[in-house]
């Protein structure tokens, strides 16, 4: 049930944000500070999400096979691999390291 609540809040929230952009008058969001915050906010959130997803287990920090997978994704990104190849590299390397280290 709580998952459905989260889904409902996300669906409504994301739609309102999208619609707001199309409806508000240009002046509101055109201010330089607002623009700068908007450009930087996803950088902060995505960086924190990447780190947590790779190095957290519950509320503890761990270094496991996912770190190797993330390193593989980074290499794939530096080689300008397509999106799905980047994800695939992370998955395959993580599974491989986990299989080897048991």
């Amino acid at each position, binding site marked *: 049930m709580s998952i459905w609540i989260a889904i409902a809040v996300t669906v409504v*929230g994301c739609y309102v944000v999208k619609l707001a952009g*199309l409806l508000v008058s240009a002046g509101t969001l055109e201010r330089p500070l607002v623009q700068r915050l908007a450009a930087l906010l996803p950088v*902060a*959130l995505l960086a924190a999400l990447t780190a947590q997803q790779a190095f957290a287990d519950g509320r503890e920090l761990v270094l496991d096979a996912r770190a190797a997978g993330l390193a593989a994704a980074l290499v794939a990104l530096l080689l300008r691999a397509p999106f799905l190849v980047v994800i695939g590299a992370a998955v395959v390397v*993580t599974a491989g390291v986990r299989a080897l280290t048991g």
Partner: protein
Amino acid sequence: MRSPVVRDALGVGVAVGLSGFAFGVTSAGSGLTVLQSCALSLLAFTGASQFALVSALAGGGSPVAAAVGAVFLSMRNAFYGLRLSQLLALPRAVRPLAAHFVIDETAAVALAQTGRRAARLGFAVTGVSLYVLWGLTTFLGALGAEAIGDTDTWGLDAAGPAVFLALLAPMVRTARHRAVAAVAVLLGLGLLPFLPAGVPVLAAALAVPTVLYVEGRVAGRCAAGRAARRDRGGRGLGNREQGGRAQPNREEGEGR
């Protein structure tokens, strides 16, 4: 001729639409049902936020904190909408429907076109092809993940961080972006043991005002230094002020 627009739009729609597989698998691995995964893809329809939500739920976060993080992450769509409403000049009656398709990819394709007709066509074709495929591949991915059982054995828990990294990489272009990312990582990981699940990611958003504040202080000090040197008949800018985080360069346009 409008076929190049359609080709580009379909290319983006198909390539990104296929990554719904990754979302379906991650979502199912996070404990959501096939129906819940599909509901997110069809109704929320903004990839990064969907990944953020299911990851936060998997980490045991409260549903509201998880949803707030996801909506935060979607804020950039409002800025795409602002640019698109000027470019596409949509009639008011169409806007509530068009809003659903205001995402990274449709904005990127539409903003790359010259002329209103091409922009509208690019927006529509990217939006519809991506929407259909994203929904379909989410369904197949979630179904597949349920069939194979323990997704961790297959390394599928690494798909989440890889997706976030792949979304993040093209956004990080300047020293300021790198500083924000670094501070956010420190906050996100450092606060993990002390705050309820889902909250550290929200706290990581404080990296933005932190970096802007420090930048402002450093820039202010540099300006003061320059003024002092000018008073002494100094020789202009030292090299050190040009590099690093103090660089007062403006944003090179937000998003993609």
